[in-house]
């Protein structure tokens, strides 16, 4: 079973040289720590920065330089600032190669719910609806089940949707799953996890074909 950092590490293996990537809050943010050596990946922060660098050194925090999670960050050589319309313009125009975000639920049709739990506090969708409606390649990073042990991979989302038919891949603590027209296709299992455990933790249609390899992280 993977911990959050290992999920991020596995997702980092999906990165390719030259990719522009938007990382959501939570596990997705950790992906930045595992960018493979020898490739250039540029991080887009939807509040108006391309080329996001690491957190600043203590004492070097700049109130005018934050990421979409409102954390203090830094720039890198070759960074560029822009306004929010340009930022979402480049997202809508498909210029961002990969979006990684968290989710509360994902359906086997690729629908995603991530922004609202009716009756509880609504924080708002932020940029998530724009990202999922526009990104060419969306990977969801999340735990396979929620805190009550219920599957988050469903045949239909129960929570209000963030977007429809958009998620391409899911990396959880248990598995790597691709979403196809046929449903969830199990690609890889986490070290120490059996196919049965994944099947039991998945409510949506899960397709298991041939031997399922153990994931490399």
């Amino acid at each position, binding site marked *: 079973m993977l911990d959050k950092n290992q999920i991020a590490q596995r997702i980092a293996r999906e990165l390719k040289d030259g990719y522009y990537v938007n990382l959501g809050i939570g596990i997705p943010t950790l992906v930045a720590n595992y960018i493979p050596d020898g490739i250039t990946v540029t991080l887009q*922060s*939807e*509040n*108006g*920065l391309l080329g996001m660098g*690491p*957190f*600043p*050194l*203590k004492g*070097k*925090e*700049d*109130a*005018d*330089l*934050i*990421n979409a*999670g*409102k*954390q*203090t*960050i830094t*720039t890198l050589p070759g960074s560029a*600032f*822009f*306004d*929010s*319309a340009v*930022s*979402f*313009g480049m*997202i*809508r125009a498909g210029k961002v190669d990969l979006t990684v975000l968290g989710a509360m639920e994902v359906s086997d049709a690729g*629908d995603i719910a991530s922004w609202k739990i009716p009756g509880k*506090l*609504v*924080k*708002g*969708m*932020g*940029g*998530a*609806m*724009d990202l999922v*409606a*526009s990104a060419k390649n969306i990977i969801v990073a999340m735990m396979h089940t929620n805190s009550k042990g219920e599957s988050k991979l469903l045949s239909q989302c129960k929570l*209000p*949707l*963030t*977007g*429809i*038919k958009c998620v391409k891949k899911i990396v959880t603590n248990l598995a790597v799953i691709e979403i196809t027209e046929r449903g969830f296709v199990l690609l890889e299992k986490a070290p120490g996890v059996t196919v049965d455990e994944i099947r039991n933790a998945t409510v949506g249609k899960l397709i298991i074909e041939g031997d399922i390899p153990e994931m490399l992280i």
Partner: protein
Amino acid sequence: MNKVYNNAEEAIHDITNGDIIMLGGFGLCGIPENCISALEKKGVNELTCISNNAGVDDFGIGLLLKKKQLKKMIASYVGENEEFERQLLSGELEVELIPQGTLASRCMASGYGMPAIFTPAGVGTEVAEGKESRIFHGKEYLLEYAFEADFALVKAWKGDRFGNLIYRGTARNFNPLMAMAGNITIAEVEELVEPGELDPNEIHTPGIYVHRIFQGTNYEKRIEQRTVRN
């Protein structure tokens, strides 16, 4: 042509109860601190605020929420604000949550004289309810209307007496879009300079959009999530 005001109080003097105002900023980054304080002090009520966030409990738009000066909030993300939650749940505050890119585009549309734009954000979700949609090249888009605002309150790094503005870092965010969109745009700047001191090639907001400008004071520029590495 005199666009220069002495301070926030004078610049916002004619904002009145019931006005629709846009406020620049993302989180607490790049918010018009002086204008917000002046609005709080003036005690103007029943405001509709268009801003990406609602501040925190004791800073930014949160100050106006605490004094119950808002009738309606249009935003994309409003976490980290207990008073907001309370007013929302009690029904005191009307809230319209919209996708962040839609918020940006609806401001931009206004500044570009485009009455409406098409965006795929929210298709298939509750955001799409009651909205006109249309298919282009096999993909569905929602028709979203340009915002109209009586006032836009923006914060820039540097500005000149003609209203030309330059923002700094990610404090740019919604500020240039809202600056273009206000019926009356009020800019507060950290540094007010003479025309000619800013390079015309580096201006982010041309002065034509800015009706009033003043040099702000006592900027707190509070950091919401101070994160450092070792």
